[in-house]
C-alpha cells in the first residue's frame, strides 16, 4: 500500500520535476530604448545551427580559429547584448535587472562577483552546473559607459575561454592604466 502511494506520488511529481529543470538560456530583452541612445550596440544571437555553420568556416590551421573551434565544441548557443554610450550613467542598473533576476532562479550559481572602485567596472559571472559539468554561463559586465550581457549555453570551458585573451587582439587589461588606443596582439 505504502509503495503504491509512493509510486503515485512520484508519478504526480515527475512532470513538475521535469518542468522545473533549470534552463541555461536567458530571456534577453531587446533593450530598444537603450539601443537608441547607444553610440554602439552589439546584438549577437547564435543558436546551435549557426554555431555549427560557423564551425565549418573556422580554419584549424589558424591559431585563433583553432582556439575558437575548441571552445565551440559542446556549445548550443551564444547570445550577446552590448551597448556603449557617450556619457556616464546613460543606463540604470534597473535596466539590467530583468536579466539579473533570472539568475536567482534555481540552477544558477554565482561564480564571481567583482567590484572595482578605480574603474567602476562590475563583473558578475554565473554558471549553471549539471552532473558536474557546466551547462551554461551568464556574464554581466557594467562599466560607466558600457554594459555587456553574455549568455552561453552548453558545456563551456572557462579556462580555455580565459586563455583566448591575446588571441583576438585583446590586450592584457590593466585596470590601473589608461586603455591603449590600439589593441596589440600578444604572442
Amino acid at each position, binding site marked *: 500500500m505504502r509503495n503504491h502511494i509512493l509510486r503515485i506520488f512520484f508519478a504526480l511529481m515527475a512532470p513538475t520535476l521535469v518542468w522545473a529543470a533549470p534552463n541555461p538560456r536567458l530571456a534577453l530583452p531587446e533593450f530598444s530604448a537603450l539601443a537608441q541612445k547607444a553610440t554602439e550596440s*552589439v546584438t*549577437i544571437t*547564435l543558436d546551435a545551427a*549557426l*554555431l555549427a*555553420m*560557423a564551425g*565549418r*568556416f*573556422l580554419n584549424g590551421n589558424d591559431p*585563433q*580559429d583553432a582556439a*575558437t573551434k575548441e*571552445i*565551440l565544441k559542446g556549445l548550443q548557443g*551564444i547570445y*550577446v547584448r*552590448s551597448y556603449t554610450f557617450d556619457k556616464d550613467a546613460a543606463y540604470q542598473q534597473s535596466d539590467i535587472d530583468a536579466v539579473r533576476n533570472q539568475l536567482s532562479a534555481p540552477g544558477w550559481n554565482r561564480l*564571481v*562577483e*567583482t*567590484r*572595482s572602485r578605480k574603474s567602476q*567596472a562590475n*563583473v558578475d*559571472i554565473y554558471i549553471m552546473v549539471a552532473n558536474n559539468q557546466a551547462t551554461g554561463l551568464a*556574464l554581466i*559586465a557594467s562599466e560607466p559607459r558600457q554594459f*555587456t550581457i*553574455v549568455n*552561453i549555453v552548453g558545456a563551456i570551458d*572557462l579556462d580555455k*575561454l*580565459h586563455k*583566448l*585573451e591575446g*588571441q*583576438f*587582439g*585583446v590586450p*592584457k*587589461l*590593466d*585596470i*590601473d592604466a589608461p586603455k591603449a588606443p590600439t589593441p596589440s596582439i600578444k604572442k
Partner: protein
Amino acid sequence: MSEDLESQLRAALTPVAPRDEFTQRLIARVTADKGTEPSARGIRRRSPRATAWWLSASMAASLLIAVGVQHYRQERREAERGLEARREVIEALRMTSQKLNLAYEVIKNQSSLPAEDKPGV
C-alpha cells in the same frame, strides 16, 4: 522641421542605379530563360519541327543554366552566412574573454592587497 525632414528623406532615398555590368548580366540571365538573345527584331519565326527541337534544346539548356546559377548562388549565400556566423562567434568570444579578463584582473589585484584592505567578494 517635419516637412524639411520628409523632404530630406525623399531626397536621400532617390533610387540609385546598379552597376552597368550587373544590368547587362541581369538582362542576359533573365532573357536566357526565353532561349534567345535580346533582339530589337522581335520573335524569330521557325518551322514547327525546328521550333519543337529548339524549344526542347533551349529549355534543357535554360534548365541547366538555371540550376547551375541557383546552385552557385546558393553556395555563395551559404558561404556568406557561414562567414558572417564565424565573424559573430569570434566577436562574441572576444567580448566574453575581455570581460572575464576584467574580472580576473580585479580579483588578482585584490588578492595582492593586505588582508585588511580586501573588500568582500
